[in-house]
């Protein structure tokens, strides 16, 4: 019997020994208070972490001590807050009081105290999340926004001011990871703008006391923003406008490319100076004739086709001071539309040639340009200046024209500027093919001659406006080669002293010289120079002005050929020159006589009447005509000159 008990004891020992070696019983390990939290600053809870229990059942106890008190109290509630927790209710909670809390773990072998923790409830407040979170979509002037509103956690007494909470919310689009945070302060509503149309948003909110911990995030609220078309529509409109714009640009580019290069369109080449006909290579070659001939433009003198306005020149002849009164006087007369022959008795050396005649241009040519070519014109008022200017303008291009200068050598009276006006191809053609016959057409162009509004195609007088400006225009003779053409037949019939210049102030002549004729200057007096007497006993008259000391290129010396019609020869072998006014233009050619000043009044009208001067008025005291009168500088047919002419 003893043996079995011993065996049992041995067995028991055996059992126990391994047990005792495997798990060593020990007092519990040290617990630790993990945290204490108060949700509303009225109660609080502390949690601890139990240590190793030492193999035995361990019990935990929490003890606390209040500030400035030695009394130790145990946790009133171990269960409300869960395991390993201690809940302090309102009665046990004091604010602004330090709690010294300790947890004790106890097992059969012993007990272990945790480290004490000091807490002040005020500083451990972590509220519950806000409640009743609502999100609605609202509209502000067509643009949507979210209105978020919530309530404080029901336990936190914000109403009495016991606790003050501040809030924060976060928003994100569905599917994204980044939240957009917004601090809302103490308010309980919030607006969120800049929404994406048609998107779904997640919204959450949390709160915190002014000194405490943030609560957990509330439960998510979902909201879907409806689609707002008008906003996107405006974007589409913009895109369409932009596309249309680009389209237009492309079309324009293509158009440009098809016509010429784009570069040419955007950056047009700068035109360089160029003289028509001027060839640098010719210059290099060194032949001056070639150069100059190249410069001769075929279109020059301008024909009818070209615009005559540029060429319209009016010449105003200005006299030296001693004739000042005369001029003035004549000027006045002119205004009366009378041509005056200037009493140029004293004016032998005026050097005025036919250039000086004051011729009018056609209306078509625009304003008459008057060219005061004489320096004496300064005496003239404005008009002369104007004339001067135009004269210069006009003459310059023509300075070198052959046709400009009188061609003395040719034995014919060259007509004046066809250069000035688009006379029909006249420029250098000899007015008179017939050797013997020179027909100079005398155009009396003057403003005064032409009635305002005269339709003369050529002599157009630029209109009454110019009339004024022209100032005194003596009757001018403008010789146009062109006209002679038509006149030639007429003229040629006359075999007399043919230098007969038909003072064709007739419209015929005048018409023929469309706008072309511009006596470069207005000459108060006109002188016809007897160039020579040809074999047929014709006195060739030549306009005077040439010799006056102006060179060939003297612009002033437009050799307008003035023609005066020989009326007859009187018994004294006096050549009576007469000017005739014929035709519509009613150019008035005053009698060449200076003496006829007084007659000018009667002379000028727009009538088509051919008027002839009264012979007596036109009588000149003739001087014997030499057989040949060499052209002299001062040679001109003066009123006082006398011709002895063979009688018809």
């Amino acid at each position, binding site marked *: 019997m003893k043996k079995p008990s011993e065996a049992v004891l041995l067995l028991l020992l055996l059992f126990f020994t391994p047990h005792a070696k495997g798990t060593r019983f020990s007092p519990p390990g040290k617990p630790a208070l993990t945290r204490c939290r108060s949700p509303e600053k*009225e109660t609080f809870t502390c949690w601890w972490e139990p240590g190793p229990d030492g193999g035995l059942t361990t019990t935990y106890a929490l003890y606390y*001590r209040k500030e400035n008190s030695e009394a130790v109290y145990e946790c009133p509630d171990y269960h409300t807050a869960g395991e390993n927790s201690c809940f302090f209710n309102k009665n046990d909670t004091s604010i*602004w009081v330090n709690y010294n809390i300790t947890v004790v773990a106890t097992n059969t072998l012993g007990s272990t105290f945790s480290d004490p923790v*000091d807490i*002040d409830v005020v500083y451990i407040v972590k509220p519950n999340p806000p409640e009743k979170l609502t999100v609605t979509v609202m509209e502000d002037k067509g643009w949507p926004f979210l209105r978020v509103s919530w309530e404080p956690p029901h336990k936190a007494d914000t109403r009495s*001011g016991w606790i*003050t909470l501040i809030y924060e919310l976060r928003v994100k689009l569905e599917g994204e990871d980044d939240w957009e945070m917004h601090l809302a302060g103490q308010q309980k509503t919030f607006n969120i703008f800049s929404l994406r149309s048609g998107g779904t948003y997640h919204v959450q909110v949390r709160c915190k006391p002014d000194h405490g911990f943030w609560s957990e995030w509330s439960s998510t609220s979902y909201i879907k923003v409806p689609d707002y078309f008008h906003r996107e529509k405006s974007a589409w409109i913009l895109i369409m406008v932009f596309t249309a714009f680009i389209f237009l640009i492309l079309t324009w580019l293509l158009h440009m490319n098809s016509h010429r290069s784009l570069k040419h369109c955007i950056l047009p080449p700068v035109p360089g100076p160029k003289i028509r006909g001027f060839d640098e290579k010719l210059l290099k070659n060194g032949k001056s004739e070639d150069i100059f001939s190249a410069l001769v433009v075929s279109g020059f003198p301008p024909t009818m086709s070209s615009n005559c306005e540029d060429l319209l020149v009016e010449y105003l002849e200005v006299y030296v001071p001693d004739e000042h009164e005369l001029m003035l006087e004549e000027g006045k007369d002119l205004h009366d539309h009378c041509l005056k022959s200037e009493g140029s008795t004293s004016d032998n050396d005026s050097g005025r040639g036919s250039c000086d005649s004051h011729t009018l241009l056609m209306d078509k040519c625009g304003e008459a340009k008057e060219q005061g070519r004489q320096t004496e014109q300064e005496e003239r008022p404005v008009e002369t200046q104007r004339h001067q200017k135009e004269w210069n303008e006009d003459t310059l291009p023509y300075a070198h024209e052959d046709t400009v200068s009188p061609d003395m050598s040719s034995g014919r009276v060259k007509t004046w500027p066809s250069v000035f006006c688009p006379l029909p191809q006249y420029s250098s053609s000899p007015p008179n093919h017939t050797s013997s016959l020179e027909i100079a057409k005398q155009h009396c162009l003057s403003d005064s001659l032409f009635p305002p509004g005269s339709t003369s195609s050529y002599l157009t007088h630029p209109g009454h406006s110019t009339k004024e400006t022209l100032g005194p225009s003596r009757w001018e003779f403008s010789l146009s080669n062109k006209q002679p053409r038509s006149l030639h037949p007429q003229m040629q019939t006359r075999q007399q002293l043919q230098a007969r210049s038909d003072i064709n102030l007739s419209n015929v002549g005048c018409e023929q010289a469309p706008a072309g004729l511009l006596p470069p200057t207005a000459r108060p007096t006109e002188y016809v120079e007897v160039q020579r007497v040809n074999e047929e006993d014709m006195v060739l008259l030549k306009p005077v002005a040439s010799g006056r000391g102006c060179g060939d290129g003297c612009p002033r010396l437009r050799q307008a050929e003035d023609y005066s019609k020989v009326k007859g020869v009187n018994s004294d072998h006096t050549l009576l020159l007469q000017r005739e006014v014929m035709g519509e233009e009613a150019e008035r050619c005053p009698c060449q006589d200076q003496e006829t000043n007084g007659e000018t009044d009667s002379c000028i009208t727009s009538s088509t009447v051919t008027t002839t001067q009264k012979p007596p008025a036109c009588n000149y005291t003739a001087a014997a005509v030499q057989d040949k009168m060499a052209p002299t500088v001062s040679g001109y047919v003066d009123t006082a000159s006398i011709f002895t002419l063979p009688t018809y």
Partner: protein
Amino acid sequence: MLVYMELSMRAGTAPICPYGQAGCHVPTLADLFDRVIQQSSRMHGISSDLHSQFEQYFLPSKNLIGKRKCHTYGILTPDDKENAQRLGREQLTEVILRLLGAWGDPLSQFYQSMSRDQNQDFNHYSSNKAMEISDMVHELRDGVAKMAEKMKLSGVLDNTVSYVSPESFVPFSTVSYYKRGELNPMDHHDLLHCFRRDSNKVKNYLRILKCTTLPGLDC
């Protein structure tokens, strides 16, 4: 007047005239409440900052409870919501005034001690903060006094509130403690600890006062 100006400057609002001069805006009670609450909140924030700075430099004493006693412990203050609400407006106002009054001198001493002490490892920031809270507590006390006056005038408060001199509240030990003029770092730490708590009380009491007097949107 100066207090009001100061309060207004700190609160960032329009200047006010306590006597209602022409052209000035006379503050309402709500304005006054807002101003003092803002001021007290700011004061508490600064004191918290200072306290946490002290905690860095010194090992936090584990036995604070038994060792330290604030000099204002003699002032009975409600320590929970029910007690505070039970106290009533007049007494609550009185408690506030007492608390504020009790801290005027100690904070000045504290500031002087801090600026004087070369051994301390405090930066200029801390010294400025000390000066700031020292000024604030005086201004706040004057502000609350004026607000109490206005409340009395408007009939919100009874006339039982009276202004009591601060010395009567300070316990002997603390007074001698502070009046000695020599404050060691431990003293500084304790002082800040106490002040932080008291400023929190003031802020909270003022809020309760406001919400019981003017219940509104903020409460």
